[in-house]
């Protein structure tokens, strides 16, 4: 463990006012801390100095809830691969580094305050079909329909999406194709999702467009930024599902 000092340029924005970057010194930071713990240290100091702390979303701090996220030096969740901001540790930075920290930016993600954005557009997309329409009760025995291990594994690869929005923030078109592709793939791969697969693909894509997300241009930035490493193969599968649904 060692101690580093950083220069921070953080996006501050509140209410209807126009946002701007403000500069702060981090003060001494242990390299064992996580990025969010570094922000905690800054916020404790700002509080005591009578300034409002930097607002940021966070909850589980173990990389699974998908609440946290900011763009650090141009990278959503920072430059370390397959890592959420809460799991990004300060040992990946050097003493004296200057860091620009800003919120995820996209038309469909309105900035709420500082680094906090509104991602309810993702909930709207899921409500259009990101599920199997079964009521509670009456399910057949869990082993009644065998599912090949490879298929179950692939479905889980897609289902690992944590809905953080880094894919959107990294995309030049602010597209949500990876997010939608992940859910459509999971349910298209598993037999339980088959009855609704066509309807699901159409409805979710339509809602994605309605929410103001752009289209995919094969930049692959989303895959690189995804903290769970979700593959763009899921976008290909989404396209296939969508075309099949469209012409059937």
């Amino acid at each position: 463990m060692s101690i580093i000092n950083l220069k921070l340029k953080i996006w501050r924005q509140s209410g209807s006012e126009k946002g701007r970057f403000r500069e702060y010194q981090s003060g001494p930071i242990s390299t064992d801390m996580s990025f969010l713990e570094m922000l905690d240290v800054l916020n404790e100091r700002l509080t005591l100095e009578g300034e409002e702390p930097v607002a940021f979303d966070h909850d589980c701090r173990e990389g699974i809830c998908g609440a946290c996220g900011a763009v650090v030096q141009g990278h959503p969740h920072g430059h370390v691969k397959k890592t959420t901001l809460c799991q990004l540790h300060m040992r990946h930075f050097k003493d004296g580094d200057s860091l620009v920290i800003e919120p995820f930016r996209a038309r469909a993600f309105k900035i709420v305050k500082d680094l906090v954005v509104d991602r309810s557009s993702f909930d709207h997309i899921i409500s259009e079909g990101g599920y199997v329409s079964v009521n509670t009760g009456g399910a057949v025995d869990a082993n009644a329909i065998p599912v090949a291990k490879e298929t179950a594994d692939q479905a889980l690869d897609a289902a690992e999406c944590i809905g953080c929005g880094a894919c959107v923030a990294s995309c030049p078109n602010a597209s949500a194709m990876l997010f939608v592709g992940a859910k459509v793939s999971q349910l298209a791969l598993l037999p339980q999702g088959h009855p609704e697969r066509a309807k699901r693909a159409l409805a979710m894509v339509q809602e994605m467009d309605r929410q103001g997300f752009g289209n995919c241009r094969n930049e692959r930035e989303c895959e690189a930024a995804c903290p769970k490493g979700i593959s763009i193969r899921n976008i290909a599968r989404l396209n296939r599902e969508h075309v099949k649904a469209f012409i059937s």
Partner: protein
Amino acid sequence: MSGPLNSPMELNSQIPSGPLENKWDNFRFENKLVNPANKRKYTIIVVGTGLAGASAAASLAELGYSIKSFCIQDSPRRAHSIAAQGGINAAKNYQNDGDSIRRLFYDTIKGGDFRAREANVYRLAQISNGIIDQCVAQGVPFAREYGGQLTNRSFGGAQVSRTFYARGQTGQQLLLGAYGALMRQVKSGQVTIFPRSEIMDIVTVEGAAKGVVVRNLLSGKIDSHAADAVILATGGYGNVFFLSTNAMASNVTASWKAYKKGAGFANPCFVQIHPTCIPVHGSCQSKLTLMSESLRNDGRVWVPKHKNDARPPSLIPQEDRDYYLETKYPSFGNLVPRDVASRNTKEQCDLGKGVGPTGLAVYLDFADAVNRDGIEVIQQKYGNLFAMYEKITAVNPISEPMRIYPAVHYAMGGLWVDYSLMSTVNGLFVLGEANFSDHGSNRLGASALMQGLSDGYFVIPYTIAPYLSATVPGQVSTDCSEFKAAEQKVHARQNKLASMNGTRTVDDFHRELGHILWEHCGMARNEQGLQKALELIPALREEFWQNVKVPGSALDLNQSLERAGRVADFLEFSELMVRDALAREESCGCHFREEHQTVENEAKRDDENFAHVAVWQNAGEKNTPQRLKEELTFENVAMSQRSYK
């Protein structure tokens, strides 16, 4: 000390008649139902969107009730159930290894050290199989064998393999299933969701829960919502310790407000300290990260045999290692229940045999498993957990054993509920970790997901019906005086907190409270320490209300203010927790009173005097709360000294 203000509340557990196996059937048959056409007239508030809350909201909406669903996060999908790693138990016996409903029931009762209610636990075991069926039907991608069948692994406290899993993220997959079901009902119009909403009070009218007062976390606006019944599925209170494996926003506020409105609080001192977490790194640490119990299937726990052995683990030969769990508990070995594992780890570290820079850690070693099964097999089972460990510690657990230490993880205690999951306040139901009912004084691994989904998918849809069928729908609106009075109190408290301009931050107070509790009400407790805590907590609380500093406005997104409110409630609740630990003069499960141990340092129960649930009744601000009892009777299992040897 002055006497209580209220007369003691009634604690009728409403256990149905008949033999254990038939109680749930009998209940469902004798149960009053609500006519399908009438269901839509009832509005139900569900607070929390974790496994219990989301599954309850979705299932009740499917039946036709109108649901208002509240959560503190920006999306219902982020509730803390998402972080559960290891798995979910069910008595499917797919492995043909001798499992049955009765065995799951017995393991759970025994694991809980005979401090849970037989009828509730049996129902849980009966329902467990249906949960797996339901989740598979929703498209939850559980792990499978090459033949396409579901696979299982073992967890602590059981000698069968009954845990279903999806890599190390079972909670995530189950929650996304429940979230999908919830969003489907949002689409159908049966559920309205209110994300970024925090419950500030529960409103009762003529003794029955009729709504909630809510703060919109974005605007700071205080609003009331009325309903015919209120369901709390708000999780556990482990964050009272400041450092825990719980998510940052997890809190006791809704449960605490319910307690103040007359809901009994049961066994608050029962808090699970999980044996395998990543050790604390420094004073600015904000939370602790769990390493799933499933790792104990293949990982071996050890410490150096000699005190202060500073050699790196690779240079410590076998004969100088103490695999203390395997030696002490040959039949269960590394898979002893969590309380036993945690206590033994503390004991080794107290003896000076702990490892790492702080001496507060032990090794969890995969070398033998890798030699036996190969790296690939072990990576496939635990790959994402290994990656998570490496991310946090910068150490690869294949090349060097993991270092682990116990951390606060789960609250077995919670609001008291009867068989129908109704609290002592009429119409206030409590589900999942927020209630006390199924885990006694120690929860077994992979049973939290089972209980949350059991309560939400399969219990509450039946057990809420008799209450509603006796209730005229829509009687109360938010215009009534009870709502206005509650709103005013909330406003006053928010404004007071937001105007506090002292010299210490909220986190500073919270951290100090955590230290007090970890020191005096943690893995081992004694009378002197608990008495000490009872002096320290009120003093800290008083200082908080004089000297905390909360920047920003009450009418804005203000995360300091949110935390201030939660910590203020923790500062009150913690006292009840310590009081409960002091009054329970025995050791059981997680609750280890140093005065009460066997010659082998195991927990020594006192069944004659403490085979009961302790239920605390609020007696107003100035009075000591009253301790009531629900006696536990064991007709189907013999209460034995737990042995895992």
